[in-house]
């Protein structure tokens, strides 16, 4: 029996279970209700239907899922026992390629064989497949019947079917929410293990406080010491993401939020707000392209014009500027929210004292909203330091420890991409360094987030 057929059959069984259990519940509860006692009937008939249907479907479904993973192995075992399989080549890949082909023909996924050996195995495959398919189907159906029957016997007016069904719903929701933690753990685990290996080659102190980054030296066998000082990367990341980008994003974002919330007419606000939000929706690869080809050369020309020495067309400024623009909506929407969260009464209080709007904003609203704004800025920073494509395309790769915004610097994310996509040797400190960098980045964003959440929460509490 084929997969879809059995699923269809199960679905049918589930439907039957639902209908019959519901009908039974309907009849029984009608009787019970007639008896007059209000709490004689607990759940709606539909819930009984679901209860029985779920008992019919879930055990059988779990079995099928397991079976789908186990049976191919069993099928192959039995095919390999066939005389025709004796002539198969010994080497694993060709062998499994032939088996795979035979299987594909047997299931009809493929019309003919490239490999004559495969043709011979088609028949044994077909037999084995139908054999195990049938076995699986029978077992699944038996389980479905058993589950359904058990549940059906429990259908009584006062049986709390709704509670059971709802418990399952809750469990599903709970499991879904665990996924965030699992993902986080997955990230930590996948970073931690490789980072651990890295730190067994490179002293963490050297990594965190060294000022020289030249992984290729290490790769070329100059030794690991002195090659993995990540400070220039951290500096580049901070310089671009937390300094230049924020110098652009904070004033523009904050003032935009203030203008749009406090001054603009509703129509202007209605159109401008989403327009500005679009800045966050432009793909970063587009920003990168734009920064590299339009902004960076222009900035370099400008720098040369005003006589700045060592201006590079891959400048921290170009990347930071464009990144800052990208971040504007993050800052402005957080600022917007926090200013809006300052109670109207504060604003009224100030205005009623005879303060002008700007006095009210700068002396009452902003100070009151400051924690929220700071939280928003922290989140924006964490977004900025994690940004990859813009810096990959526009900031360059030179690990310079410089204050000159027209010079080229590099960032942690750029280096991760470079280390993992460039010429690399497996298991060298160079490759593993990418994971160590990733770990640092992860920890930093985590800390920023925890701090930001704390700040924002404190501030919310102040007004609730």
């Amino acid at each position: 029996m084929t997969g879809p057929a059995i699923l269809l059959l199960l679905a049918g069984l589930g439907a039957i279970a639902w209908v019959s259990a519901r009908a039974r519940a309907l009849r029984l509860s009608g009787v019970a209700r007639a008896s007059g006692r209000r709490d004689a009937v607990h759940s709606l008939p539909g819930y009984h239907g679901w209860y029985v249907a779920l008992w019919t479907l879930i055990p059988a479904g779990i079995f099928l899922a397991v079976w789908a993973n186990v049976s191919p192995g069993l099928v192959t075992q039995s095919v390999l026992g066939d005389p025709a399989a004796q002539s198969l080549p010994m080497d694993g890949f060709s062998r499994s390629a032939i088996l795979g082909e035979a299987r594909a023909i047997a299931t009809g996924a493929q019309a003919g064989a490239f490999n004559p050996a495969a043709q011979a195995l088609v028949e044994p495959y077909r037999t084995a497949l139908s054999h195990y398919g049938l076995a699986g189907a029978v077992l699944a159906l038996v389980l479905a019947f058993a589950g359904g029957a058990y549940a059906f016997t429990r259908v009584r007016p006062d049986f709390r079917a709704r509670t059971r069904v709802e418990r399952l719903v809750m469990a599903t929701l709970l499991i879904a929410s665990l996924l965030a933690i699992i993902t986080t753990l997955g990230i930590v685990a996948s970073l931690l293990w490789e980072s651990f290996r890295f730190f067994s080659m490179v002293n963490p102190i050297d990594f965190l406080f060294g000022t020289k980054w030249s992984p290729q030296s290490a790769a070329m066998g100059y030794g690991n010491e002195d090659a993995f000082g990540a400070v220039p990367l951290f500096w580049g990341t901070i310089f671009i993401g937390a300094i230049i980008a924020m110098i652009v994003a904070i004033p523009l974002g904050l003032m935009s939020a203030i203008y749009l919330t406090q001054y603009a007419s509703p129509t202007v606000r209605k159109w401008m707000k989403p327009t500005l939000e679009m800045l966050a929706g432009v793909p970063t690869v587009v920003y990168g392209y734009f920064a590299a080809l339009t902004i960076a050369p222009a900035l370099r020309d400008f720098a040369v014009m005003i006589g700045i020495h060592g201006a590079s067309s891959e400048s921290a400024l170009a990347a930071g500027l464009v990144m800052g623009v990208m971040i504007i909506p993050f800052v402005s929407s957080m600022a917007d929210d926090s200013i809006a969260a300052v109670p109207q009464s504060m604003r009224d209080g100030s205005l009623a004292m005879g303060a002008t709007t700007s006095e009210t904003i700068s002396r009452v609203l902003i100070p009151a909203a400051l924690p929220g704004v700071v939280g928003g800025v922290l989140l924006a920073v964490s977004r900025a330091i994690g940004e990859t494509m813009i810096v990959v395309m526009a900031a360059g790769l030179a690990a310079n420890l410089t204050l000159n915004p027209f010079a080229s610097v590099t960032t942690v994310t750029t280096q991760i991409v470079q280390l993992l996509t460039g010429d690399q040797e497996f298991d060298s400190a160079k490759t593993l360094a990418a994971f160590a960098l990733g770990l640092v980045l992860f920890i930093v964003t985590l800390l920023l987030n925890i701090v930001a959440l704390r700040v924002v929460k404190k501030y919310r509490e102040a007004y609730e």
Partner: protein
Amino acid sequence: MSAKNPTDWKSDAMRKRIARRYAAERRFKAAGLLAVALSAAFLAFLLFTMVGNGMRGFTRTEIALKVDFPASPLLLDPANITDEALANANLPMVTSAVAQKTLGKDADALISPSAWISIRDAIKADPKILSRTETIDVPAATAIDLAAKSKGTPEAEVQVARLRQAGLLATGINWGFLTASDGTDPTQVGIWGAFKGSLLTMLVTLLLSFPIGVATALYLEEYARKSWWTDIIEVSINNLAAVPSIIFGLLGLSIFLNLLQLPRSAALVGGMTLALMTMPVIVIAGRNAIKSVPPSIRDAALGIGASPVQVVFQHVLPLALPGILTGTIIGMARALGETAPLLMIGMRAFIATPPGGIVDPATVLPVQIFLWSDEVSKGFVEKTSAAIIVLLAFLLAMNGLAIYLRNKFEKRW
């Protein structure tokens, strides 16, 4: 305590002071307006630049090639036109010979190296032309194409002038750009493959992140009692929303590819990786939407004996749905434009066959842009910008939809 005189509001000093305060007010307001204007201007400049660069990518220059089939060295039986036969007919050579006959010795520099494909397609469409002379429009070489549409090299300009004179040159909309896939000849490439890859990837992302995100939001907002446990979940989710996307790439690489042995370069893995990124966005938007459903609705339902699950699924969720959808669209838009994590899981690849399903190798629009921006041939520059326009149009449409939904369903209780 000195008894102060009542304030004299009419005094000169006071008047001056008020004038100063109003001037400050105007400056402040102007600064706000300037900030908005600057941000908007930047967006406009970006869009303008991209569109300016990319519009040309949607057009293609063609040269009318007169092909005298009977006289050509083409060995094809009109009754038996199969792919096989066409592949063996050595069409590139024939095309080159024909072109040299009509266009002169340097014809190979004028027509695209894949010009023969146009001839092949013409034969396939109508085998009868093999018995007559037919004018077929073939794509011009990149240099000619560029020179015809904008400024090219001096030599190419000369050639273009010559061809124009002869009336052989035409520039038209390049529909192929929307229907073809990646290739090596800029006159032949298209974004359909990457577009389809993006669609499939987004489908996987949506199917995974939406239900899980909504379920998580519901659990956290409606059922979970506040405890260290929910705090951990909350911090994880907020953190995931801010984790650098490249780290999701590392995760996808080590979990989906190395551990679970899922196929490399597939939309499935891309979608799963992006789903991990999108889910927290949906959770956060979902929680906000759920929070904004007034508690009085919950009270009302609970007050007549609805169970918590009924309250949520019959009242809260339907009311929060527009907000959740808006958040979902924004999250999806971000995923659609995401590049970095996909580089890690093998989607930075030359894939000339559009994917047929989620396990087929695929690439996505932004990665295609990234790849094309690194191509040798100059013809790819405008293709890159054209692909950016397609991506931007897609994204703006999604953002627009989100804004529409938000405006339409935004409720105040």
